[in-house]
């Protein structure tokens, strides 16, 4: 049994230690907002925060996550996250929406570390999150908008 702390709650999961955190979150904790896209840290769909840092949960063994504070899309609630989510709705960013949990987790972390990001900052920070629907232009605008909203 491994104890995971997800969104402030403790869960006992019966997972083999090498199971990626992603599957423990989705299939054992039962939170499905975090998505699977590639399983090799290429797409960012599985992005969660571990002790506040964005990580690709598909590539972190669940044993490594034990004892760390995990936050998923269902658990983000600070002013940065709120601003990002509001801006995402205002600018109607999602298309299919599948990549967007990951985009939002990354964007929230970006805003926290850089409250006024430039286009170049956004491009550098958000590069790890693929969007097959091509919502990139709106993602950029929405991050700028969120930066305004956060004040």
């Amino acid at each position, binding site marked *: 049994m491994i104890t995971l702390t997800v969104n402030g709650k403790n869960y006992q999961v019966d997972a*083999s230690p090498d199971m990626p955190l992603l599957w423990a979150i989705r299939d054992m904790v039962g939170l499905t907002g975090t*998505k699977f896209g590639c399983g090799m840290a290429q797409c960012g769909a599985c992005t969660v925060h571990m002790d506040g840092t964005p990580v690709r949960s598909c590539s972190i063994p669940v044993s490594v996550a034990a004892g760390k504070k995990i936050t998923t899309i269902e658990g983000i609630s600070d002013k940065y996250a709120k601003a990002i989510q509001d801006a995402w709705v205002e600018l109607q960013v999602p298309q299919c929406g599948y990549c967007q949990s990951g985009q939002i987790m990354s964007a929230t972390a970006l805003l926290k570390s850089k409250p006024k990001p430039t286009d170049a900052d*956004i491009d550098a920070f958000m590069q790890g999150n693929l969007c097959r629907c*091509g919502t990139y232009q709106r993602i950029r605008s929405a991050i700028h908008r969120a930066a305004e909203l956060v004040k």
Partner: protein
Amino acid sequence: MKNPTPTSLDRRNFLRITGITGAGLVLGLSATGSGTETVENISAASESFDITAFIQIEKNGHITLFNPKPEMGQGTFQSIPALIAEELEVSLDKVTIQQTGGEKKFGGGQSAGGSSSVRGSYQNLRKVGASAREMLISAAAAQWNVPVSECYASEAKVFHKPSGKNMGYGELAEAASKLEVPKSPVLKDPKDFKILGKKYPRPDVPLKVNGTAKFGIDASVPGMVYASIERCPVFGAKLISFDDAAAKKVKGVIAVETCERNISGQKSEGIAVIAETYWAAVQGRKALSVKWDYQGYENFNSKDYAQQLRDAAKQEGAVQHKQGDFDKVFAEAPVKLEAFYETPVVSHSAIEPMNCLAHWQEGDRLEIWTSTQVPGRIMADLPKMFGLKEENVKIHTMFNGGGFGRRLYPDYVYETIQLAKKIGKPVKALWTREDDTRMGPFRPMTFSAFKGALDADGKAIAFQHKVISPTLDGRKDYDKSKADGTMTEGISEQKYEIEHMKNLYVHHYLHVPVAAWRAVTSTTLAFAHECFIDEMAVKAKKDPLAFRMAMLTKDSDTKTLIQKLKEVSHWDKPLPAGWGRGIAQYEFFAGLGGYVVEVSKKGTGVKIEKVYAVIDLGTVVNPDTVEAQVQGAAVMALTAAVKNGITFEKGQTVQSNYHNNPLIRINEMPKVEVHILANGGPRIKGVGEPGLPAFAPALCNAIFAATGKRIRKLPFDINNIA
């Protein structure tokens, strides 16, 4: 149409507006009672009706609109219910929207593809809404004993103008349900639209920013187990035997079963490892040892196949379209040119991998949850495949994490249903990214051979586009005397007035599963077609836009589109040194779109500076969604133009995941300025696809203008223009 028996009514009655698809829309009514799971209960109550049933109004005023078009990012979760809501006079944020699951009563159009959702539903679903509105108004007028003409509907209520009295739809539903259905309901004047034509927020967006939107991959039922399926990496191979002893020793693995995949005319076997967790299933799968018979396909590779297509191009081919006397005019023309264009195989690569959850109950009842573009087709297939009756099947059409044509093919659904049946437990089968990248189906390549001729004044007088390709249905016994319509899509539909034309098709078989891909064959043909038109313009020493306009003397949407492109891109304004601009347009079954792209020289490559898109719709339902769709289409087109694509070696797909089958990332995304033409007219054109085909040729024409290098083969390296 029968009335439901009184026993099917309970304390809560519903107004049901129903229509028969076919010759025209016939509206009917049935009153039915129900609890919360309305779809199933109504299905039981209206079993004997061959009807569609899109509106449900409960006595408490709650309204549900049924949406037959799966949502995959193209916005049908808003644009389709909007058609009903507009005429019904209800606000979209006050209704529940429910995806249909292939039920007969919702008619034959339960699929999303071909950019057809809005254009196919625009009139019919508005009529559904308008009929209901008229019935609700009549019911209120009767209750108040006032003329119908003194009443109107607004915000889910009927008002009596002179007195200001009003009643909610919920209170009126039962009385309205007993009225005659209007034969020809009066549709609203577009100038009174509150939803249609407006930038209206999509109701699925809030769900997609907090993790609550449910995709196929998110479905679960108690007792569910997981499957990961091993398939032969060599296309066309057959299973000889497998050893699952090691796989079964992996903790959590509970069974190993075979299943059959059937796609694009290709059948193949898979070995599914079924486990208590998905991770265990994947580990168990790695422990399988399998013997395949490659059937001689183990040496197949892209290079040889491409050479075969080049060789096949020497065949005359089947005539796809002919006008004038191409052969003679071309032979005698003073100026002529020829060129050969090549495009690659590409993958759909939706970020949500293929998946399905199948649950058999009591042997002959089946419930499935899946991300699919075609719930209607799945429902139609199940009786012959599994001996199921429609009333015993429940399909949950989930949000699609991308479709792009891939989810028109339910191979992954049927595999899962087989497995669930074999092991007697609900099974969720999920493809890995590697499965998704390697197994196809893929967009096939098309090669194009051109001939063009000009008269002494540089006017285009003869044109030939010969397409060389496999077909999407994967048929080996293709009748070579016929030109395949899909594989020659749009090549004879362009409005350019060229007197002598002969377009041709040469088939060359491919055993790898291929499929429709967003904008289908127009994505490759437009590149070749519109680049060659550019080559003709260069040969004629004409400005490429002016050259096109000179071939458009008659009024057409294409002409209007090019004029609009000229204006929004400031085509005549000189560009800085080292820059170039290119134009392209393409009209095909889904609609009409065009681009002007500007690039600048940067080192050995080019940088995309500006992208202007114009899409012609005739009628627009949600301009905000259209803008997003066109921007997304541009990104997808750019990926297909400048990233690797799919290649084959030793009978297998070389690429496996996003690291070697890359997609455009945010730092590579150009800004796309979108303009919409919505000037009315009889034809409503599609949104999801027409933003794609013209992008690559506009880009390559711009590159020619900037660098003098003509790109005739995709993909190419944008950082190193050879």
